[in-house]
């Protein structure tokens, strides 16, 4: 299929009954959506399941979709909502969190780094600690941070994606960056970077 055809045109083709158009949309976005969800949920299986759910929901809703926003923004909106639901469900269900064999969310990153930085800050562990810090953001802060930082969405698009005012997006973004700075500060204060 012609790569020059824009997403909205493909949606129109799908709405006109051309099934292949949806396949092309999946092909274009599956990697982006999977990556976004993987960064958000940090579990391959869950990211895959939610990615499938995103496209399933998109397929069901696409028939009545109106091009008020970009298709990609709409798709990220579905993914973000599902990711937020996932985090809420996970927060409500401590058994599920333990099954995931992850460090509990209450774990204080900075405290651990101070206690024994030389031994603990091996390369892999450092990556884990940093991602844990990102996990400590609230679901909305995390969504704003991920969408702007790694998905390349503009603040306006994030506002549309998350149904927020642009000013609110900025507030979440500021809080997210400040929180990350607080949590990760020990890493560079101990000359580990």
């Amino acid at each position: 299929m012609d790569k020059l055809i824009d997403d909205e045109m493909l949606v129109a083709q799908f709405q006109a009954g051309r099934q292949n158009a949806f396949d092309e949309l999946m092909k274009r976005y599956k990697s982006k959506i999977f990556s976004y969800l993987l960064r958000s949920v940090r579990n391959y299986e869950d990211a895959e399941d939610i990615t499938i759910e995103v496209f399933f929901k998109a397929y069901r809703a696409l028939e009545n979709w109106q091009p008020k926003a970009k298709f990609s923004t709409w798709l990220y909106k579905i993914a973000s909502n599902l990711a937020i639901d996932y985090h809420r469900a996970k927060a409500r269900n401590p058994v599920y969190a333990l099954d995931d064999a992850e460090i509990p969310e209450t774990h204080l990153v900075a405290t651990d780094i101070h206690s024994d930085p030389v031994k603990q800050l091996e390369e892999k562990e450092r990556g884990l600690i940093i991602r844990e810090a990102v996990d400590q953001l609230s679901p909305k802060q995390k969504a704003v941070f991920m969408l702007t930082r790694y998905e390349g969405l503009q603040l306006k698009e994030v506002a549309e994606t998350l149904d927020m005012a642009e000013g609110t997006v900025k507030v979440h973004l500021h809080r997210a960056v400040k929180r990350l700075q607080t949590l990760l500060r020990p890493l560079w204060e101990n000359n580990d970077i």
Partner: protein
Amino acid sequence: MPKCKKSEGQAIDYAYKVLPPAEEVPFKEHLKNCQDCTEAVESYTAALELTDQAQAELVVPEYALRNIEMNVYKRLAASQEQTWFSRLGTYFTSVGSPFGRYKTAAVSSVAIALIVAAVLIGKPPQPEQTFQLTEMQSAEARIEEYREQGIQWNLEEALITHHLRNDAWETESQLNRMKEQAQGTSWTKVADKHLQNLQSGTLNKTQQN
């Protein structure tokens, strides 16, 4: 944390590269004279660089993406099937009022009777014309298409393993997996042919040794 609270938001925006162009030049000027904000920008930038590095390690492997489309269509097919049964249930419950308190039992009996009749006659029950399963059929066709694509990928992978790694055992395992996946299709013959070729190649090697 910067003591210069007035520009804290701008410091974050500047580090994040989302500061509006109109504010950028004045803020750069401000930075020249404000040690607090300079340190804040450095600190935010360091935090962001760290998260960028850590996030870059999270890479989606190609194989993880292979079955997405097929699984989406499987999900659609399953949902359509569910809808079909729920519609069937709704259809029977909607006519259930004359049954009164025995409605559930009556509906179940009618449903079982219909299923049994359908099995005996060899024809699925079709209470309404609106139960056309076009979407489900479409999903099934797509599932088959993606299944075939998956078979081809597995074959390619097996051949790559053979040619690049010369790992006969792994190649054989991959071909067997492909053959298993291809049950009921002509791809099993392709798998058999490659397995035979592999075996003869391995035997030749053994003879040379």
